[in-house]
């Protein structure tokens, strides 16, 4: 696989021949006497990775992304810290069966690679490969937060209407969160001339069902007074999922109308904040579990239910297919909600068609930024 992404001459195509080679490969898929193969593409998807290892992982996900939302995928591998090598390209055309196999379509991928100073030249190559009249998306798959990426991100996102990134596993979450919140405003406002742009965090998308379940748990219709009585929120998460937990807390506290007071971090163990409300101080803790999958493992809210001291525990079931609300202190059956499988590729595929600015996300990020600053 590595050689397919790098400089093995068997796989390389001169940049000026990329389109021609794609067309040739596409025509080769057409059987004798068969109807022409159609290109399936709803968007331009530019994916940036800054290491070969990561590119190999992403490369394996691209077909799944294209199955959800067909796109011209341009996988851009830029390794600035490696020995310089020029921009190279390889192309792949993959058949897709649609309409139950009655029609043939194909998805196309171009993989660009450069190292050293030549990384700066990748945006030129990308510019030439974008297809007009299709929405352009940049998937910033490098592990560093986009605002810390420098001019390369700006160049690659020049024509992008959506920048997708994944805060899962950021090395310095506090710094990353602080920088990203203000970057979001900037990146969306920098576009001119009637253009628009939106930035999306895949981690936020992962929280979709958690947020939905929390809203239902605290819904005054089913749990009168619960929302006002929440006194402490504890979110436990597996390694690398701290920002996911953090974003959920930011969203929840915003919804509850709490105002940030102070914050404190115990390195590698817990981040804690105190919020002020008309009903007194409220506490939020984000706790890291030593092992397990990189996701939220439990949300515990201490509150009052039916006039009794109680707690709500929101946990994923073992299958991972459902989320459940378990109540402490009151007698009630667990309530559950189905959670469709969400692979990274599936998330990207769904996000490609979801281009609306999410006000809840932006408000939560503003809160999260305040929470980050309280820890610095």
């Amino acid at each position, binding site marked *: 696989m590595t050689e397919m992404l790098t400089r093995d001459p068997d796989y390389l195509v*001169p*940049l*000026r021949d990329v*389109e021609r080679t794609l*067309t040739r490969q596409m025509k080769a898929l057409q059987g004798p006497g068969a109807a*022409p193969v159609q*290109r399936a*593409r*709803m968007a331009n998807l530019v994916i940036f990775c800054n290491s070969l290892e990561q590119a190999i992982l992403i490369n394996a996900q691209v077909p799944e992304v294209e199955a959800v939302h067909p796109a011209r995928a341009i996988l851009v591998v830029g390794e600035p810290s490696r020995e310089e090598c*020029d*921009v*190279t*390209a390889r192309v792949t055309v993959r058949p897709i069966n649609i309409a139950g196999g009655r029609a043939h379509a194909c998805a196309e991928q171009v993989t660009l690679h450069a190292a050293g100073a030549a990384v700066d*030249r990748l945006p*030129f*190559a990308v*510019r*030439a490969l*974008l*297809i*007009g*009249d*299709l*929405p*352009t998306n940049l998937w910033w798959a490098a592990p560093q937060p986009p605002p810390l990426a420098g001019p390369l991100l700006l160049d690659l996102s020049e*024509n992008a*209407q959506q920048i997708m990134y994944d805060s899962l596993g950021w090395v310095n979450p506090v710094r990353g969160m602080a920088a990203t919140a203000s970057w979001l405003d900037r990146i969306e406002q920098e576009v*001119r*001339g*009637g*253009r*628009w742009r*939106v930035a999306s965090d895949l981690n936020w998308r992962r929280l979709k069902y958690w947020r939905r379940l929390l809203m239902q748990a605290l819904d005054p219709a089913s749990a009168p007074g619960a929302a006002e009585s929440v006194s402490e929120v504890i979110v436990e998460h597996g390694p690398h999922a701290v920002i996911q937990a953090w974003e959920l807390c930011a969203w929840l506290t915003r919804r509850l109308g709490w105002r940030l007071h102070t914050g404190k971090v115990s390195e590698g163990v817990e981040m804690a904040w105190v919020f002020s409300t008309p009903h007194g101080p409220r506490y939020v803790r984000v706790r890291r579990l030593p092992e397990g999958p990189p996701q939220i493992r439990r949300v515990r809210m201490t509150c009052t239910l039916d006039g009794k001291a109680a707690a709500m525990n929101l946990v994923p079931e073992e299958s991972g297919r459902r989320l459940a609300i378990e109540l402490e202190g009151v007698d009630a059956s667990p309530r559950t909600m189905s959670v469709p499988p969400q692979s990274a590729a599936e998330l990207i595929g769904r996000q490609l*068609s*979801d*281009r*609306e*600015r999410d*006000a809840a996300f932006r408000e939560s990020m503003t809160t999260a930024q305040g929470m980050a600053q309280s820890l610095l």
Partner: protein
Amino acid sequence: MAIELDASATPRELTQAATQHMLPQPCQLVIFGAPGDLSWRKLLPAVYNLNVDGVLPSHFAVVGFGLPAEGDVKGDPDEWIRNRARDGIQRFSRQDLDEVHFADYARSLFFVPGSFNDASAYNRLKARMEAFDQQFGIPGSRVYYLAVPPTLVDMCVGRLKSAGLVNNPDEQTAFTRVIVEKPIGRDLDSAREVIASVSQAFAEGQTYRIDHYLGKETVQNLLVLRFANSIFEPLWNGKYVDHVQITVAEEEGLAQYDPDTCEMIATRAGYYEGVGALRDMVQNHMLQVLCIMAMEPPWSLAPDVVRDAKIGVLNCLRPMSEQEVEKYVVRGQYIEGDVNGKRVPGYRKEVREAFAMMKKPLPSGSVNSTTETFVALKLFVDNWRWAGVPFYLRTGKRLPKRGSEVAIQFKAVPHILFNDHPDVPLEPTVLSLRVQPEEGLSMRIASKLPGPKVRIYPVKMEFNYSSSFGGQTPEAYERLLLDVMAGDATLFMRRDAVESAWRFVMPILNHWETHRARDIPEYQCGTWGPIEADRIIEPDGRQWRTL
């Protein structure tokens, strides 16, 4: 004019048949400047393809005339041009070289070496052409293709006339026609001079001013799209069209480089420097395409009826004042950048190296050349149909990719049902006609995404000539050469059209001349032009398209 007839038709149907089309007539195609680049890349391969496709007249020959850059031809001149043709076909032809077809082509391909200024060379040319008439049964009919620099046009037509090589314009069988390549002059006055000098030897009806863009299938399909479909023409006006963008993007710069040694191997600097994109592209190709896009329905497809409709557009172009030139026109010049993964030099460096390669002194004005390699402009067609609709034109060299298109963006729907939310953009409907590469058209429309919520997503419906019709689309030059042989001038520029187009661009040229910029806006090779180009479109709440 020869008409192809349907043998099964009755006499009345024969004269009224709607499917008549003109056939190329027996003739000799005489290429002035046959050793040159245009002939090598385009003309000789085009004639080969016509031969392979079986559309050339059976009584036909090609005669090259001129001198190669290196001087005299060594060996047999006919073999020399045949080898040159073989090389051009191998490199540039849309159909692979087939030895059987090539042998047939080569036996009617000849070369007469000689200087355009040498009267005796014309006598030799005349003698050989008369011999070819005998050999191939050609009735003395000639098509002269002047693939020569504009400065030589006057000399060539004068010599042709003096040598008795131009027949009476009324002559139907032994006709004489001349094809004149762009540029027709470098301003209105010089264009008139060129037109006048050609007209001393050739009548307007014998003169075919070629613009190869008009030979593109997509450009011709514009007529079909507009006038053979009922859904477009009712929308083709300022009531429904928000704006139009015409883009001609070139990936290539002034020079070509050897991919291995990176040394300059060919250059257009001698022609392009001091000419620039406005003269090279806008005044002819782009305005001609604009005409077809914007013209009123012609009442027939007869050449002069279509050309009358086109000139109607040119005559309605709103002349630009000095202030409007400042406001609506932006030029630029490329600087070092990146194309196809290779570092490429800026324009000025290319000009310096080109003149050095040609062993010519660099003109003093070219030391810090301000020749524009990019131009973007906004113009208006002041007639009932297009009142208030801006037309944005943009062309440049060393842009990220090669591509030409006409894009018609329709007006937004009322902000009531679907696009009243400022954060949910509803991309406008766009009809885009691709002229090159991959000729075809596409339409972007809004569609609902599957699912319980109403979410709108832009989808693109595409029609591509090569995948829909299979095979290969003929090159523009093939079509246009056939048209000249058939005497069909529809796709060629009439004298008044040339003058009108020049009249429109003159205020821009004059303004640039009187306000000489020390430096003009720059753009990196491999980008979509200078950032200044945005200022003519973005204040209108619009943006340049991504091709």
